Each structure stands twice: as structure tokens, then as C-alpha cells.
């Protein structure tokens, strides 16, 4: 994927560029807001990562003007601020996701993957399926190999997010945001607690574990060998 990274701090820009390049993306770095705006308006990028504080033209203005210009690629905003209302203003400006510095690269990569999947808009799905696990999104029911599995609503939402990840990593923070709607990090790992309950329900009767733990990062649905 062709990704624009608008970041004025050279170390951070290179950290992101190298990481994304290793994942097979083409990365162009813009070091100020005006340059970022010019590149984005040429519409050759498929995704943009924009730092909130850029010299020349600040990140939020870049996002706003990009949207006004009709460019609708996914945009992830990076910020060192992390104040309570920053996320809201970022999303209101037209950003699709928001990540607070400092971040682990795995977190950024997972979010880039998620944003890339979000485009193009998936047709209205009523069912998700992964190696025998079937989620009925309308009835909120889970079945594995044809047998129904009783899960709590929150466990259903966790499984749904993992299945939508299509085998890509979904981080703990992403799960906290999407399932619990918390934008802070509780010390107790409630995500792990609930995943382990979901796991034991899904694997009941000695079935193989299909939820893979990525240590220190998050989870993904295990792919077939």
C-alpha cells in the first residue's frame, strides 16, 4: 500500500517508515503540513498517517482540508498531546483513527491494517465465518462446527472484532476502544480476562484454540496451516 507519513520529527518518521516498509508498504514522508497537503491532494496515496503538530500547517488542518478537497483515503492522526477532548476534535476534523505517542510499532501496524480493511466499505454482512466458527450478526449467536456456543454479549463483541480482523492482529487497546469504549488503559487486563473466558467456551470439548495470542500486543484469529 502507498502510505503518506506526515511527521516532522525525523526519528519518528524513520521509525514509522522503516517499520511499514518491512511490512511491504511504500512510504513517502512529508516533513511539514503544506507538503503533506500538496501530496495528499495529488491523490496517489491509499492511506495517510498525519502528526497533529506539524510546522507550516497543523495536522488537523491538513486532515480538514484533505476532506474538503474530497480525498477520502483513511487517515490516522498521531498526537503527543493525549488530552481528553483531543481524540474527539481529531475525529471531528475527519480522521478515521487516533493514536497517542509514544506508541508501540505493533499498535500502529495493527491500526494501519484495520484502516486498510475498512476501505472499501464492506457490503452489509450478516454472518462472519472463520474455520468453522460462525457468527450470526443479526441473532448475536455463535456456533462452532455447527454446534451452538453460549457466550456473553461482551464475549460476542470480542469475537466479532477478532473475526473482522481477518487473521490480522487486533491489539488490546483497539479491543478496549471498540468493545468497552474506553480510551484509557486500565491496569488490570480485562481484555485478557474476557478473552480467556471466550476461549474456554469456544474450545469446549478439546477443540483446537483458534484465538492466537501475540504477546504484549493483542490477538488474532489463527489461520489454517
Amino acid at each position, binding site marked *: 500500500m502507498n502510505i503518506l507519513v506526515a511527521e516532522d520529527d525525523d526519528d519518528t518518521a524513520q521509525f514509522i517508515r522503516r517499520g511499514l516498509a518491512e511490512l511491504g508498504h511504500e512510504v513517502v514522508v512529508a516533513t511539514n503540513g503544506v507538503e503533506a497537503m500538496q501530496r495528499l491532494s495529488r491523490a496517489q496515496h491509499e492511506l495517510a498517517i498525519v502528526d497533529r503538530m506539524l510546522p507550516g500547517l497543523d495536522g488537523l488542518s491538513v486532515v480538514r482540508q484533505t476532506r474538503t478537497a474530497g480525498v477520502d483515503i483513511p487517515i490516522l492522526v498521531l498526537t503527543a498531546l493525549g488530552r*481528553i477532548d483531543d481524540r474527539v476534535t481529531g475525529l471531528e476534523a475527519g480522521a478515521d483513527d487516533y493514536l497517542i505517542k509514544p506508541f508501540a510499532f505493533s499498535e500502529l501496524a495493527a491500526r494501519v491494517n484495520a484502516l486498510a480493511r475498512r476501505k472499501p466499505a464492506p457490503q452489509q454482512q450478516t454472518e462472519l465465518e472463520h474455520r468453522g466458527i460462525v457468527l450470526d450478526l443479526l441473532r448475536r449467536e455463535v456456533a462452532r462446527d455447527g454446534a451452538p456456543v453460549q457466550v456473553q454479549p461482551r464475549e460476542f463483541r470480542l469475537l466479532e472484532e477478532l473475526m473482522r480482523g481477518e487473521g490480522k492482529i487486533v491489539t488490546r487497546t483497539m479491543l478496549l476502544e471498540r468493545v468497552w469504549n474506553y480510551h484509557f*488503559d486500565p491496569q488490570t487486563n*480485562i481484555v485478557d480476562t*474476557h478473552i*480467556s473466558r471466550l476461549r474456554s467456551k469456544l474450545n469446549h470439548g478439546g477443540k483446537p484454540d483458534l484465538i492466537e495470542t501475540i504477546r504484549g500486543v493483542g490477538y488474532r484469529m489463527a489461520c489454517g496451516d
Partner: protein
Amino acid sequence: MISWPSSAAYRIALANFAAYAVGLVLLGAIVFATTHLVFSRQLDGMVTDESQELQRSFANGGEQELAKEIAAREASKSARKMGYAVFAPDGRRLYGSLQAPRPPTGHHSIIFHDPVEGKDEAHALTVDLSPRDRLVVAVDSDWFENVQNIVVLIFSFAFVGALLVAFGGAIVLGSYLQRRLNAIASSAEAIIGGDIRRRMPIGPRNDEFDQVAATLNRMLDRIEGLLDNLRQVSSDIAHDLRTPLARLRNHLERGVDEGGAAALLSDAVRQVDEVLSLFSAILRLSEVESRETRRQFTDVDVTSLLTELAESYAAAFEDRDRRLLWTIEPNLLVEGDRELLAQAVINLLENALRHTPVGTAVRLIAAAKGRSVRIDVADNGPGVPATELPNITKRFARLERSRKTAGHGLGLSLVNAVAQLHDGKLIMSDAGPGLCARMQLPRPKASPKSARAA
């Protein structure tokens, strides 16, 4: 300290004086014009009356009678300096002693020759008695001018007097205002100079200046409190950061010696993360304390928020061999920030989870009580010594026995700050046995009791 022309006090006093002076000049002009008008009319009346009497004499007795009358009047001297003359058409004076040329008919000011004072001005009425006789009755307007001169003189004196009084008043008022303001300014200068404990002097009268000084003092108290807090926090941060950073340094040094083993590096990353999480906790705390987030307060359904939290955390308690029990009243509403309230309750729950022994039961109880909503997190663990209770909500406060467990000692500070942000409070008490943390939050003003629907 403040120069004359730039002093607002003097400017105000002098402007006040100028307005006073203009008023005085106007009043003088009005008095002058009025007396002028009144006296002119009176003179007109005097000469008209006199002239009419003489005309009657002429009509009754002819020239002889008139001449007699005039002579009698001139001899009496009782009347105010009236002058009389009858002129022939050729300008010759026939009777009377008024020494003046023959004037035209009607009311006029004339110049006559006074045997004593010389040339003088008089107010005269001239009428034709017959084709031959023209009667002039005149009255000297000297005394009238004198009266007017006196009016002008009185007002001049009054004006000069008022000028002196007002000017003196301006100086007194100006220097008074300046003295009061200088007292405040010099205290401010002392504070600027570093004496931050200095306060504005407050007089016994409780006037405007004293009230301003009292307000400034309260502001200074607040600023000093914030400064103290800031100083305390910076030294706490410096202290609390030294430990993990020193540990990190040792780790990295060992990593360098051993050629950067992967395990050491990932350990170092974990330690940096710890420091960073301490930083974000500090930032979040100061953000909440700044009260900026109040702008986006909405009605928060506390019942569903707490139920959700309890259900999410019950599993975590169970995994650690403790129990979470909850009793949450329906329809609890608080005006506030959902995330911050959630974080506060989570901090209380995590506190109970972390600082209690295995087997402890923790209760989450939420209920409306009067005008407030109470959220209690109580455990039946060992509790906190009564002497420590007031300290545990302070920043970086950690009981001696919990020094070795994880955590940065900011959890309860945040709960406290969140409660205060919502105009509520955090009360720590002995649950006998155990610790009870109560968040007491005000209910919204117009409590929509009827909003029973989900």
C-alpha cells in the same frame, strides 16, 4: 511613581472641577441676563409712568402747568435722578434741566451732561406733546449698571473661590486615590520582587479599595497554593522517576556489557513503558485538575456504566481469587464525563483488587441519597490505619507496606480529582473491617425521574 499628566486620579478630579466651573460661568451669565432684563423693564416703566403724568399735566394746564410740574419735580430731588426737558422743533430746550440734544421719539438710551458727573448715560422716553413741544423724561441708569457690576463681581469672586476649592479638592482626592493605589502597587512590586507571601494591605473601612485588595489577596492565595502544589509535584515526579530510570540505566548497562541480549532489551522497553505510563497518569491528573474537561459534560447513565464495569471486572476478581459483588440502583444519573467516571471507578476497583489478600469480598454499591449519588467500593480486607486515611488520596501517597507492589500512587489522587471535577468528593473511611471508598457526586439539577425507559 506616577507623573502628573498620566494620573487618572488627578484627571478625574480636574475634570470634575472643570464641569463645576462651566456650571458656575453659566449660572453667572443667566443671573446677569435676568437682572439686565428686569432692570431695563423697570426703568422703562419708571420713565413711562412719569411721562404719562406730565402728559396729563400738559393736557390739563398747557405749557405753564407742565413747566410748573417739571420745576417741582426737579426741586424735590426725592425721585431717583430723573431728568426732564421739553424741546422745540429747532432743538432749543424750552423747560427742564436735562442737558442733552433733542432725541427722536420712543425709548432710547441717551447721553446727557450731568453737572456733577459730566457725560453720563440715561434711559429716556421721548414723546411729542404738540407739534411744538417734545417731552423727554430720562432716568440715570448709573445705579442699574452698578448693580450689574456687583453681580459680575460676586460671581467672579465665587468663581475664583470655587476654582481654589475645586483645585484643592482635586489635589487632595488625587493624592488620596494615588496613595491607596500605591499601597496595592507597592505590594505587587514586592511580590514581583520575590516576596510571594506578601499580601495587599486591607483597611478597616471595607471600601472599594479594600474589597479589590481582598479579592487580589484571595487570587494570590490561590496562585500560591497552585505554586506549592506544582513544586510538590515536580519534586515528587523527580523522585518517582529516578527509581525506574536508575533501574533502566542498570539494565541497559548490563545489556551493553553482555552484547545487547534480547531479553534485556525487552525488559528495558517494559521499564520505559512504566515511566511513560507514570507520565500519562500525571498529565491526566493535571488535566482533570484544570477543570477544562467540564466543557463537554453530558448526562451519564451511571447505572449502566457501573453495571457494565462490574460485569467486566467480576471476571478479573474471580481470576485472582477475590469476589466482586454489586448492588446498583436503577436510573442513576450524573452530569459528567463518562470516561473519567469509568476511570475513577476502575481505579477504586483496581485498588481493592491490588491491596487486599486472597479471598477478599469487594462490594460495589451505588445509590441515590438526597441530592447526590453515592458510589461505594468497600472491601473486607485489612483496611488502612486511621492515621493514614487522610493521606492516601494525596499524590504519590503509598502506604509503606504497598511500596513493593506495582502502581504509581496516583490512582486515588485521580479519583479524588475526578470527584472534585464533578463538584463531588471522595471520602475514605473504615469499613470495619476493610476500607470503604465513597465517591459522592451531585445529581443533575432537573433530575429526570420519569426517564425510566432504557
